[in-house]
Structures are given as structure tokens and as C-alpha cells.
């Protein structure tokens, strides 16, 4: 559109509405952080005072000292890293094959991986629980990681296939002619180029696994309880201790917010094309 609006008019028509939308988007998040910083007396004051008069980290101290939240953070970290490693480990070769080989059933298989990502969680969660119990994998890291691979693998395959496709096949051919074996070509030529995509896919799997609740709840117990499950249990346990709850929420949310801002630009391209799950 041709720039001819006055500055004041643009403020009113664009910047003000954008500001409102940004406030709407950030309001609940900011409210959670503010709550976590208020001392208990301020939390029970009515009418509310919005800005903490005496900000305190007491709730964070209590959370770490009095509950098992810290070990849940560790569990979530292990599971999210495990899901990323497993997801990437099997998806990189598969995506390479989808990009570089032409074989019978290729389109069907690739479409299949997309359809899988559309299955309702409830459809999988009931039998997965039974299966993990039979295999003795309930309440183990591997059990939850395998549960998370139901969405991690299809997503990573779709995302990485498009990244592999973006690398010209001439490069493979040139390397082959230079005498490189297929594995050498992959290791020395293709993988370094596809690394940004691998990092994005890995971070995204990490975020989804860290955020995931239903699989973690069904498949974990005391031993490998994740932060989301722990927080949900706290909601039942410490109903009125909103300082403690919001401190937990903030500790869970901050790392993924940071990671998400890191990868968001590159996710956008794959959004409609692929299987980015929210």
C-alpha cells in the first residue's frame, strides 16, 4: 500500500490495535510471573494490587526446597533430550531416503507419516499404556520417550525431508564422481548443509516433549515424573498457594519461550506444509 497516511492516523489504526493484541497475548503470561513474585500477604489482598509492592523470590525457594520440583525439571530435561535424540536419530536417515531415493511406496509412506500425526491422542494412549505395562516400561525414561516419538518422528521426517530437498542433488553427484562413498557424501557434504534444519527440528521436538502432558501422565509415575505432570499434581495439592504454583509455571515456561523465539522464524515455513503440532 502506498505510504500516505499521517503518522497520527497510523498510530490509531495500526499501532494501537497491535499494542492491544500484544497485551492480550502477553497479559496472562505476565500475570503469572507477577503473581509468582508477590509475597503471600499481597496475594490474598482484595481489591488486587497489580504490581508487587515488595517482590520476592520466596515462592521459588519454597518450590525447590520443599517439593520434588527440581527433580521433575531434571526428568523433563532427560526425556526432552532423549525424544530429540531418538527422533532425529531415526528421522535423519529416513528423510534422506525420502529426498534422495525414488522407490515404490515412497509417496504412500510419506503421506502415512503425515496422517499419523493427525491421529487423536486418545486413540493411541489407551493401548500404549497397556503395551508399556506389558514391556515393563511404565515409569521409565524410555517409556515416555517412546510415547513422545509418536509425534516427534513424523514431524521430524516431514520437516527434514523438505530441508534435504532444498540441497541440490548436483552436490551428491559431484561427491560421488570424486570417489566418495554414499556414507561419506552424507557425512561430509549433506549433513553439514542440513544442520540448521536438524537443529530446528531438534529444538522443536524438545519443546513439544517438554510441554507434553497426556503421555507423560499416563506413562510416568514417581520415578520419572515430568514437570507438567508434577505441576498438575500441585494444582490439586496446593490449591490456594498460587504463589508456589505460578513460580512452578514460570520455571517451566521460560526455557521453552526462549527456545521457541530462537526457532520460530524457521518453523513458519514448515507450518502449512508439514506436521508442526501445537
Amino acid at each position, binding site marked *: 500500500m502506498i505510504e500516505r497516511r499521517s503518522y497520527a492516523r497510523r498510530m490509531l489504526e495500526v499501532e494501537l490495535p497491535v499494542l492491544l493484541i500484544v497485551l492480550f497475548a502477553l497479559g496472562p503470561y505476565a500475570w503469572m510471573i507477577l503473581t509468582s513474585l508477590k509475597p503471600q500477604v499481597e496475594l490474598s489482598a482484595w481489591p488486587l494490587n497489580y504490581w508487587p509492592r515488595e517482590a520476592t523470590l520466596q515462592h521459588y525457594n519454597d518450590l525447590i526446597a520443599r517439593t520434588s520440583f527440581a527433580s521433575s525439571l531434571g526428568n523433563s530435561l532427560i526425556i526432552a533430550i532423549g525424544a530429540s535424540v531418538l527422533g532425529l536419530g531415526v528421522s535423519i536417515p529416513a528423510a534422506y531416503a525420502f529426498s534422495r531415493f525414488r522407490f515404490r511406496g515412497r509417496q504412500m509412506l510419506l503421506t502415512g507419516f503425515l496422517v499419523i500425526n493427525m491421529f487423536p491422542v*486418545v486413540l493411541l494412549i489407551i493401548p500404549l499404556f497397556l*503395551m508399556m505395562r506389558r514391556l515393563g516400561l511404565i515409569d521409565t525414561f524410555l517409556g515416555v520417550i517412546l510415547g513422545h516419538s509418536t509425534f516427534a518422528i513424523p514431524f521430524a521426517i516431514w520437516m527434514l525431508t523438505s530441508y534435504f530437498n532444498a540441497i541440490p542433488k548436483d552436490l551428491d553427484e559431484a561427491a560421488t564422481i570424486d570417489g566418495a562413498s554414499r556414507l561419506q557424501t552424507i557425512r561430509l557434504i549433506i549433513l553439514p548443509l542440513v544442520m540448521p534444519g536438524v537443529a530446528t527440528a531438534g529444538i522443536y521436538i524438545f519443546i513439544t516433549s517438554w510441554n507434553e502432558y497426556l503421555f507423560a501422565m499416563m506413562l510416568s509415575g514417581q520415578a520419572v515424573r515430568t514437570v507438567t505432570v508434577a505441576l498438575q499434581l500441585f494444582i490439586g495439592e496446593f490449591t490456594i498457594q498460587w504463589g508456589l504454583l505460578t513460580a512452578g509455571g514460570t520455571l517451566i515456561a521460560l526455557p521453552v519461550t526462549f527456545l521457541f523465539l530462537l526457532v520460530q522464524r524457521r518453523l513458519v515455513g514448515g507450518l502449512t506444509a508439514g506436521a508442526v503440532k501445537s
Partner: protein
Amino acid sequence: MADGTGGGRISGPRPSPSFRQVGIVASLTPADRRRPPLGRGATPFWFLLPAVLITAGVVLVPVAQTAWLSLQDYLLYDPDNARFVGLGNFAKIIRDEVFWISLGQSFIWIVGVVGLQFLLGLVAALLLNQSFWWRGLARSLVIIPWALPSVIIGLMWTWMYDFNLGVINDIALRLGLIAAPIAWLARPDTALYAIMLALIWQGFPFFAVTILAGLQTVPAELYEAAEIDGATARQQLFYVTLPSIADVIATALLLRTIWVANSLDVILVMTGGGPGYATHTLPLYAFLRASSSMEFGYGAALALILTAMLLGVVFLYVRRAARGIEA
């Protein structure tokens, strides 16, 4: 993020062949070029095996088992007495009043959440496509709700809806919108809509970002031509912008419908389906029958019905998405 560009420094894949590599390709003799194209004859079997194996184990086998479970009267605490009941579970579902309540509420849920997420996302995208100095920052900030886990979303909104100390009651009272505090999540007539607002909040950034990406592909000449022809801003929106991004919108709507139809964790965290059955949706009901009542057979049958209902939407979406696969 001080420069307001968010993650803008990281760009897409840039396959940049080095000068040496290009040189090699260029110096090929015609005979060399006649080598068989890469990949023909070689087998991708070993590359695909791990992914296919794991996926079959954690997805296909469970789906088959769900189908099998749905034909049984399978109670988790009493698996040895599981009986084959044929379509008995499905017959029971048809007569199950809660199923029909959940189905109706699922419908409200999907239409309301997806519809408003879309409208809000469209408005946000149109605004964020204008130029102003903090646009990059605004684009990064708006997207944040999307990154949050459902448990946190449930937590923050439950706290905001709190009867005694909730900020929503506080603001509404200060503005004079309500006369007395409302127990938003405890009243059957407000609970479902209250949760829907939380989910609209979480999901509108997806539409905003997707539509914004679509808007950026609309050629500027179209607007210039429209302007020369004397089109108003409104006409430009309806006759240039929207038709140009119709494809993006359709794909996003389909994808979002599938996710919203399947999503149950925010409801589970905020009300657990109550009060009464006021916030039951179909996936939540299936989950509760399985996890709380431990009726795995009945839950599986409900999950299958949900899947069957979504199949049409999934088909439409996958057909669009799979267009991108090169043969």
C-alpha cells in the same frame, strides 16, 4: 531480541556449494555425466527401517489394538475377564446420554475455538503486515502463547478466573461489567466458554503467523493496480487480499480443526470435564472413561468414533499437504 527481529538472524537452509564443488561439476566430461542417477537401484531399506519400525510399534500396533479393544468389555483392573462383545460398546454409546452431550459440546468447541482463533489471527496478521517501527518485536511477542504447555495455560487461566482473587473478576468489576464476582469455571453456563477463551488465546498466534506468511507472498502490484482502479481499502481486502491467501487459510483451518477437535488437556487441567458434564468434549469423555473409570474397551470405542468423524477433515488436509511431495 533488542533489535526487534526475533529469531530473524537465523535464516532457512542455505545450501551454498563451495566454489570448488561447483568447479568439479562444471569440469565433468560428457561421459562422466552419463553415470546412473543417484539412488536408482540402491535400496533405501536400511535408511527407513528404524523410523518405520518404531512408528509401527508405537502408532500402528496401538491403533490396531484400539480397534480390537473397542470390541471388548475390557476393564483395566480386571483384564482376565475381558469379554468379546462385538459392536456392543458402539450400541451402548448410541444410547449413552453423555456421549451426545459431549458430541454437541465438541461441536460448539470446534466451531467457536477455530472460528475465533481464525478471526483474531486474521486481524493480527493484517495489522502485523503493515509497516511500523516495532513490527519485528510485535511479531515475535504475539507468537509466545503458542509456545506454552497446556498445563501452564490451564494454570494461568484458572488463576485468572479465580472466584475470590481472579484478575478477570477484578477487571470486570472495576469496569462495571458485572455486579458481583462470577465463578466462571464452576458455573455450567459459563465454564465451557471460559475454557474456549483460554484456547483461543493459545491458538490465534498460529493463524496470525500462517496468514502473515501468506500475506507476504501477495504481489504488491495487485494492490497498486487495485488502487489505480479506485478500490477502497475494504474492497482491496475482499477482492485482492483474501482471494490471494484463500489457499493458506483453507489449509490452516483444516489443520487447526483437527488439532482443536483432538485437544483435551487444557479442559482436563481446568475443570476435568465438570461441573457435571458441562465441559465434556468427545476426546475428553473417551479419555475419562479410560483413565478414570478404567473402561478401556468403552474408551477405545469412543476414540474410534472420534477418529472416524475426523477422517474427512484429515483426508482434505492430507490431500492438500501431500501435493507438495515430488514424485
